[in-house]
């Protein structure tokens, strides 16, 4: 299939892998964090780690939108969905995220009407088709999805749709990266920058990482060769003792981001003073809420949202996994008490979550791979 297969070419991957291996200095370990859950998914889905030398470790970062939603917000959402005449709309990823009393799927089994949508704009169609219902969009995600929420609100106002509102849980990526950089228990050598977020915010916001913290950043695309190439670019920077922000995904990411999308976010939303992140705790100025001018679309004002705070389950080590301190399999409950069927932590829910990706795709040590594959893979 054109436009995809050229980014999944095994020959090119072998060549890049050889160049990456060539840049490894003997005795040195390299820890690179892919910030975005989409990258985590690609890495596992295509078996990309097979191409990396032993000294290069990928650490899975916090950029999985549903993984950072605290249980309390899930409970709040279910509370909202249980109000009379409410239809809640949500991205599919969110449907299985556990709150303290089950996930959206379980809530639906108890009588709520939470519908899966592919775009927030679909919520407006539902609102128009059901004028006697109140449609609430469960808005989640980083700067990637915030513009589409913003555009939906702008369109709802333009079209005079009164029975639509947003339960806003949008978060911003930079404070999360900063929290990780300031975390004392982690040593990282560089960052694979989030490609989709960067289509909106551009590459400039990462400059403090390179200049202030001395860590290289390469904004990367989502095909396996994109990621392998950005690993090569990071390794080259480390080899040459540089720390810069580079853009591997220039075919999609403009250096200055997308001004139209940023304007739509700025028009409708503003920073919250603080927001709770699953596993990471409260981070100041790390999330968005509806501006006062759009209060009539703010579900948190239209409904009585209890503002539930639920402590993470004791056994759950999502925070350590999100910060990259633990590999998924190092978590105490991984794969036994916490599985995709019975997730305790959010990292086990979304296909972008590090734990789910590892459980579903990566749960395989190399010596268990049939002989034939090992021989082929050892070619470079």
């Amino acid at each position, binding site marked *: 299939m054109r436009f995809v297969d050229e980014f999944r070419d095994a020959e090119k991957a072998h060549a890049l892998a050889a160049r990456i291996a060539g840049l490894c200095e003997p005795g040195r370990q390299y820890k690179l964090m892919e910030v975005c859950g989409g990258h985590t998914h690609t890495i596992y889905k295509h078996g990309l780690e097979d191409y990396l030398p*032993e000294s290069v470790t990928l650490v899975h970062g916090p950029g999985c939108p549903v993984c950072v939603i605290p249980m309390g917000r899930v409970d709040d959402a279910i509370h909202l969905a249980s109000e009379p005449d409410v239809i809640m709309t949500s991205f599919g990823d969110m449907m299985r995220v556990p709150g303290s009393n089950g996930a959206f*799927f379980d809530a639906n089994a108890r009588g709520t009407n939470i519908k899966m949508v*592919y775009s927030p704009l679909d919520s407006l169609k539902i609102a128009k088709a059901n004028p006697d219902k109140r449609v609430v969009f469960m808005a989640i995600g980083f700067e990637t999805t915030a513009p589409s929420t913003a555009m939906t609100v702008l369109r709802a106002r333009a079209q005079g749709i009164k029975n639509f509102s947003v339960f806003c849980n949008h978060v911003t990526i930079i404070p999360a990266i900063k929290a990780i950089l300031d975390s004392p228990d982690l040593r990282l050598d560089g960052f694979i920058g989030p490609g989709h977020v960067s289509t909106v915010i551009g590459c400039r916001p990462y400059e403090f990482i390179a200049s202030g913290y001395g860590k290289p950043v390469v904004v990367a695309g989502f095909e396996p060769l994109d990621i392998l190439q950005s690993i090569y670019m990071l390794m080259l920077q480390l080899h040459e003792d540089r720390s810069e922000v580079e853009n591997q995904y220039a075919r999609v990411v403009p250096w200055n981001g997308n001004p139209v999308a940023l304007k739509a976010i700025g028009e409708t939303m503003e920073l919250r003073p603080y927001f709770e992140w699953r596993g990471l705790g409260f981070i100041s100025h790390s999330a968005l809420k509806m501006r006062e001018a759009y209060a009539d679309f703010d579900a948190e004002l239209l409904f009585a949202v209890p503002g539930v705070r639920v402590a993470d389950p004791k056994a759950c080590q999502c925070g350590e996994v999100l910060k990259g301190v633990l590999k998924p399999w190092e978590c105490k409950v991984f794969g036994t008490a916490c599985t995709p069927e019975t997730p305790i932590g959010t990292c086990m829910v979304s296909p972008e979550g590090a734990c789910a990706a590892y459980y579903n795709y990566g*749960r395989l040590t*190399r010596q268990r791979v049939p002989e034939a594959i090992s021989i082929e*893979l050892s070619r*470079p």
Partner: protein
Amino acid sequence: MTQQRVLSTGDREQQVLDRIERARRRRPKLREERITMSHGAGGKATHTLIEAIFLDAFRNPLLEPLEDAARLQVGGATVALTTDSFVVSPLFFPGGNIGDLAVNGTVNDLAVAGATPLYLSAGFILEEGFPVADLTRIAASMRDAAATAGVAVVTGDTKVVEKGKADGCYINTAGVGAVAAGVDLGVANARPGDKVLVSGPIGDHGVTIMLARGELDIEADVESDTAPLAELVAGLLGAVPGVRALRDATRGGVATILNEIAQAADVGVFISESAIPVRDQVRGAAELLGIDPLYVACEGRLVAVVDAGQAAQALAVLRAHPLGAQAAIIGEVTAEPVGLVTIKTAFGGTRIVDLLVGDPLPRIC
């Protein structure tokens, strides 16, 4: 490179993985208090429901293999019996409708059990207000599909429920077929070295239905692959005695079938992504939706496990039939890792292919 990796993986990770394997093999426990949509998706949640509720209640040696059809001894003859319910939405879609789906689904469950499909029953649950013209069209499709498959609908049932209590029309079909002497197909028969084949491009039906629901604003030139497989299977079994197991890859897709093989036969299944036939339209739509065609339903495709020495012949026989023209050998049965399906990705890496919990959920970005 590989050698380094083997040494570096570490005993600790291996211990964790062993612990997980033990946890996976434990008897599944149904934790939910209510049925969720995941219980109907054909993945882990469905398996858990079946084992925890139905197998527990009805346990007997004929049911226990959980094959597509039960094999019964009736007056000296071997008979296969199966049943299937159809709740597809929309009822009419490119390439077919609920009617031919209901006939072909049951015909195929009999065919992959090695049976010659003979007689079907049809039960209808109709919603008050359902257009008679639609029902007429559905019945005509069923008649035509039955004629093509060489079966007769010989008994039936009709119920009407109040408006809102059903979604237009649901159909249940059951079928019986005759199993020839000496035919013994079953996924538990798979042995290391056997080859794994599919009879054509995968995922057509599931993607067609997703697009036909019209919620995605995606258009693609793709239609359901719904078709009766009895003739294809009869040809294959007649020419290739080394066929060990057949399954039609409906709900849960090819990935689910492969996992069932790995678990039932205590073997591994290893497949190659680049060998799996998938239409470009299906791949494109699946990429956009963030789902994997391996988990998407087919309604006219089978997975075959065949003795390695006869795999080429099996491929030739499948390809000689119009419904198997794009058949392919996609992988093989391995001794290790037991109970797991692994895939060599087109990119050149390896990963496992596990059962999904429920329906594949689209990723948000």
